[in-house]
């Protein structure tokens, strides 16, 4: 079969209201062609993405975004808790600030058909909607769990996880692909004016579905972007009750870390919200440090932290699977070790 993928073809990275695209860009570079970011959000968002190392930014228009970093100088009232226009032209509604990013799905589909290219997106709900629109428009296979991506002799070659992360396949495609990439880091703000490093931003006359965000209020409990956290404390079944999670929270506070958990804590016991659950079917994160506390180390969970720089395991059971999958292993009682660690990190230990 003749190879079909043009090495000069663009690679699209989709940023639906969330400026965190660094990981996508790194993966897109593996395909060789120019990298074009497709974004929706306030004006500041395409500008932030333009400095993140892409070749071109296409701005579809404004949309509602809950990501405060999307608007660095904006007053905080704009990012959370804002009562938005109800689509009647009230307030800023006419400009599209009350439009969910999902509304631009048809624009993404039209774009990838008019200038075909491979498409990469993160796991956010709006990014997935855009990626799905692109995959159907291109009739391109959707790949997940992709560790490596490249273009070899006109074929897209991907190394990806299969079977929920227990196996790995190298697959070659004669046509374009759509890739969902896990885990994100926010764009690091560049120091000083960096206009030379800034890619061109073009506004597309984009079609959209009429959809309205009527209201947005801060979610109960502190919002956590686990994917962006550099230090993460993960809690598992080793905690005897929900109240004991305070030990993990205190340690995380002292370290400046985010708290994550294994699936049973979020989905069975409901001790923590679902956006804290790390695993193959939950969040997949790659922090610099993952401190697994009372986590046995089942495949389901470890698949979500495979990309962590360093893994520390604290577990009572020296035979737990996690002990063979960590860089530092402390076989002991979390009820003694966590307070000691918290005190030491806070510098209170004598």
């Amino acid at each position: 079969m003749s190879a079909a993928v043009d090495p000069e073809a663009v690679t699209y990275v989709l940023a639906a209201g969330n400026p965190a695209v660094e990981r996508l860009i790194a993966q897109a570079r593996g395909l060789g062609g120019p990298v074009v970011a497709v974004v929706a959000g306030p004006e500041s968002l395409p500008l932030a993405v333009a400095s993140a190392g892409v070749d071109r930014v296409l701005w579809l228009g404004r949309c509602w975004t809950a990501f405060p970093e999307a608007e660095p100088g904006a007053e905080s009232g704009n990012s959370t808790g804002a009562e938005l226009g109800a689509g009647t032209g009230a307030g800023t509604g006419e400009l599209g600030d009350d439009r969910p990013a999902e509304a631009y799905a048809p624009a993404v589909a039209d774009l990838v058909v008019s200038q075909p290219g491979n498409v990469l997106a993160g796991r956010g709900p709006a990014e997935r909607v855009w990626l799905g629109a692109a995959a159907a428009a291109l009739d391109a296979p959707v790949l997940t769990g992709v560790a490596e991506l490249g273009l070899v002799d006109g074929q897209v070659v991907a190394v990806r996880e299969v079977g929920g992360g227990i196996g790995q396949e190298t697959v070659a495609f004669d046509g374009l692909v759509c890739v969902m990439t896990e885990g994100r880091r926010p764009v690091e703000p560049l120091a000083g004016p960096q206009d030379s490093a800034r890619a061109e931003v073009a506004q597309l006359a984009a079609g959209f579905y009429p959809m309205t965000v009527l209201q947005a209020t801060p979610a109960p409990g502190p919002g956590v972007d686990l994917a962006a956290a550099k230090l993460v404390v993960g809690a598992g079944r080793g905690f005897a009750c929900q109240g004991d999670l305070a030990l993990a929270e205190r340690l995380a506070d002292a370290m400046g870390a985010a708290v994550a958990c294994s699936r049973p804590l979020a989905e069975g016991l409901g001790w923590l919200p679902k956006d804290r659950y790390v695993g193959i079917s939950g969040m997949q994160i790659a922090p610099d440090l993952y401190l697994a506390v009372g986590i046995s180390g089942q495949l389901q969970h470890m698949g979500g932290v495979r990309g962590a720089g360093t893994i520390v395991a604290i577990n009572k059971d020296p035979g737990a699977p996690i002990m063979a999958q960590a860089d530092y292993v402390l076989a002991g009682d979390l009820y003694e070790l966590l307070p000691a660690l918290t005190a030491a990190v806070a510098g209170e230990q004598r």
Partner: protein
Amino acid sequence: MKIAVAYKWAADPSEASVNADGEVDWSRAKPAISEYDAVAIQVARELADAAGSGLIGLTAGPLEVAAPLAAKAALSRGLDSLTAVADDSLAGADATRTGRALAGAVQRDGKISLVIMGDCSVDEGAGLVPAVTAGWLGWRAMLEANRIEIDGTGLLIERQAGGAVEKISFAGPAVIAVAAGAVKPKPPGMKDVLAAAKKEVIQLTAAQVGVGLAQGEVLARARLETPARRGVLVDATDPAAAVARLIGSLATDGILAGGPK
């Protein structure tokens, strides 16, 4: 508004194993209706009841998805009928082909205007099929919904994303994926199981709903190489000494600033 709910008849990968050649062995893992799909079916049933509509089940996969055991497992959860795109060419199908199969079944029906799905499948867990199905249909899509309300001719969706709870309103046909915690699914009772045996099952082939061939050629398989971890044992007999050593090591590695004072 005619409502459908799509689900995947799939096995939990925690029951699968991988052999030395990297081939995944699913033989000990039994397919079932996952928790995610049970939530979606219940949400869809409640919506259909509120709207006075019937509830059509949709599924796509290899022939076994239309087998009596599989069909009854889904029907007993409150579906009125089932349309199954059952074709062995769909074994291991990616989201693009699964979405095409589901969209094709929706288009064949012609009257469905709302499709509910679960948060993600239990085996792939990518959460992409609802989005791709909407793409094939040219419909609106919204994921991670905690509440769905039919409001006249439109929909009112409540969902939590990016640290905010959002209320979103729109009209038009749509595919909505519900969050895993949207409701607590009730297990089917004996009556439901008995009634399921009498419900209609429509079976379609992949060709009947316009699904193309699988793309991609597998060049190599391997057991997943996890990054080698150092496995340094830190003696935890004395907690204070143990954490001091740990912090010292992490500081040396450049992960934590400073060390114990």
